């Protein structure tokens, strides 16, 4: 009886959702016909007509808009991948430091997490870009010999040239997400019973080794799911790069949409590109989950 009623509820709900989607699609179609627009993707193959300040593949303004979008997608991918690595290092370091025996380390890590989590990401990005990076002198300075050269025209580390826009987005995203990851890691470590810490310490095992061999394997199952959602957030937050002049996918789509007037198609492409990106990250995390968590749970 109860189950039957639930079935009815499901059918009604599904009907409502379908009707809503139907109305939206119909509205879109009617309005597109009325304004004589109609969905079309031909503009993707026309010359883009704008330059990009940064590209990993060869690109010229005469190339197609599709190519410009692909190049900018790679820019997004590059900054997201680098930020994920840097944010993880920062976050795991800070998270572990918050449970360290060293009071200075604990305080510093607490200050970092407390401060960064209070400030909106956009403000942080603007700070890193306009104050920190553009505040550098225009003539390159080399504080550690020829290893690093810093100027507001670009940054070179070990012969690797980075633009200031890329660096600002990288640092901004990593520092911001690092603070969130630190909390995830701290939560994971706290989920390990106190007795486990006391046990390895009483056996005379060093802090680093004990953390690696005893605590982390037990903490990881609690950390990984929250970590992957932080990575997905990072990927989506990367669209704020438009505020600091980095030619990421969102910024370039914005330009392409203004020049072609194809807003709906442009946003569809944007939507699908981010879906692809996040499925990539999600898939990667699931593989990691399977490798790390399963054996830990088996024991």
């Amino acid at each position, binding site marked *: 009886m109860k189950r039957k009623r639930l079935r009815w509820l499901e059918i009604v709900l599904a009907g409502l959702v379908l009707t809503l989607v139907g109305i939206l699609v119909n509205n879109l179609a009617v309005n597109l016909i009325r304004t004589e627009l109609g969905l079309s993707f031909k503009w993707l193959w026309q010359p883009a007509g704008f330059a990009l300040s940064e590209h990993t593949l060869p690109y010229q303004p005469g190339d197609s808009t599709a190519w410009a979008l692909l190049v900018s997608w790679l820019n997004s991918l590059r900054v997201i991948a680098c930020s994920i690595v840097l944010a993880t290092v920062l976050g795991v370091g800070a998270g572990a430091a918050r449970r360290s025996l060293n009071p200075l380390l604990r305080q510093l890590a607490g200050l970092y997490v407390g401060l960064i989590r209070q400030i909106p990401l956009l403000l942080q990005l603007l700070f890193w870009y306009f104050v920190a990076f553009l505040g550098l002198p225009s003539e390159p300075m080399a504080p550690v010999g020829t290893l690093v050269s810093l100027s507001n025209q670009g940054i070179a580390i070990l012969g690797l040239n980075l633009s200031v826009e890329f660096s600002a987005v990288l640092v901004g995203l990593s520092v911001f997400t690092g603070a969130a990851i630190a909390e995830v890691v701290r939560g994971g470590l706290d989920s390990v019973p106190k007795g486990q810490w006391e046990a390895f310490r009483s056996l005379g095992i060093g802090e680093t080794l004990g953390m690696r061999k005893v605590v982390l394997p037990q903490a990881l199952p609690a950390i990984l799911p929250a970590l992957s959602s932080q990575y997905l957030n990072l990927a989506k937050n990367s669209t704020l790069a438009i505020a600091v002049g980095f030619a990421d996918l969102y910024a370039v789509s*914005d330009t392409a949409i203004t020049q072609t007037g194809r807003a709906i198609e442009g946003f569809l492409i944007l939507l699908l590109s981010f879906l692809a990106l996040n499925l990539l990250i999600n898939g990667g995390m699931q593989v990691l989950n399977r490798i790390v968590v399963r054996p830990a749970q088996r024991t």
Partner: protein
Amino acid sequence: MTKRRSLISLLSACLAISACATLGDGEASRVDVIRNRGELRCGVSGKIPGFSFLKRDGSYAGLDVDLCKAFAAAIIGDPSKVQYRPLTAPERFTALKTGEIDLLSRNTTFNLSRDASGGNGVSFAPVVFHDGQGLLVKRNSGIRSLKGLKGQSICVGSGTTTEQNLNDAFQSLGLPYKPIKYQDLNQVVAGYLQGRCQAMTSDRSQLASARSGFERPEEHEILDDVLSKEPLAPLSSGGDQQFSDAMRWSVYALITAEELGITQANVDDKLKEAQENPDLTKLRRFLGVEGDLGSKLGLSNDFVVNVIRATGNYGEIYNRHLGPDSVVPIPRGLNQLHRSGGVITAPPFQ
């Protein structure tokens, strides 16, 4: 039944009222409406130094504002009878079309789709400022033209035609460059001032306005190269010939006065000279001493005298707000009279 009847009568009453309203609008020209009201409602921006800007004492000043005064002087005979309405870019055409304002004097680009009846359907007065996209560079950079910017970074606002114009210009010269795109003009200015780019680009008038807010404006220079055409003109809602003629010839009066060397200071002497000397027929016609040019427009016959007394000629207006000694100095360039190498000219007052 009664309900339906009352509904029908209500509907027909509504119809009758709306018919009357359109009829009324069709008959009386805006010129009479303004004269009866004793006040001209002028839409301005209020945020662009040199064009229309709110001063500390609460009054508006600028080239666009002086044009409002000139129109009020021509139609009402008193330049102080203007009510200014600050409007944003998206608001402006709606305010004009609904009749909330009489005319718009708000650095608006004159183009086909705004003028055509299939587009915005407004009618433009003559161009009062030929703007164009330009480039701002640091004076000590040694950059004097587009060629000097080869391979350099240029700060530009994204999502505008500005970006495309920039690319068209550099591509046609075969010069490589690096656009650093920001979302709005304030960020473009910040990026440029912080030294990220060797140049920033926007409309030349906006570059000059932005520069007037810099700490040391004299250290920055707008290049002579112009990347696009942006002719700015005042406009009315269209379909009212008497009103658009009055606006058109008020602007031409300002230009003709500069051609003839008539200024705010000497207009009364010139008038006296014309009255005393019957041989100066051209000047007499222009100043309304003889003939009926003003009356043909539905204005007072000496409207030109009123206009020049109010604001001075076109060159005086320009120098007051955009001249070398003003807060927002913009070289006259295309906005010089035709005989001095510009494109400003007026048809004859005949």
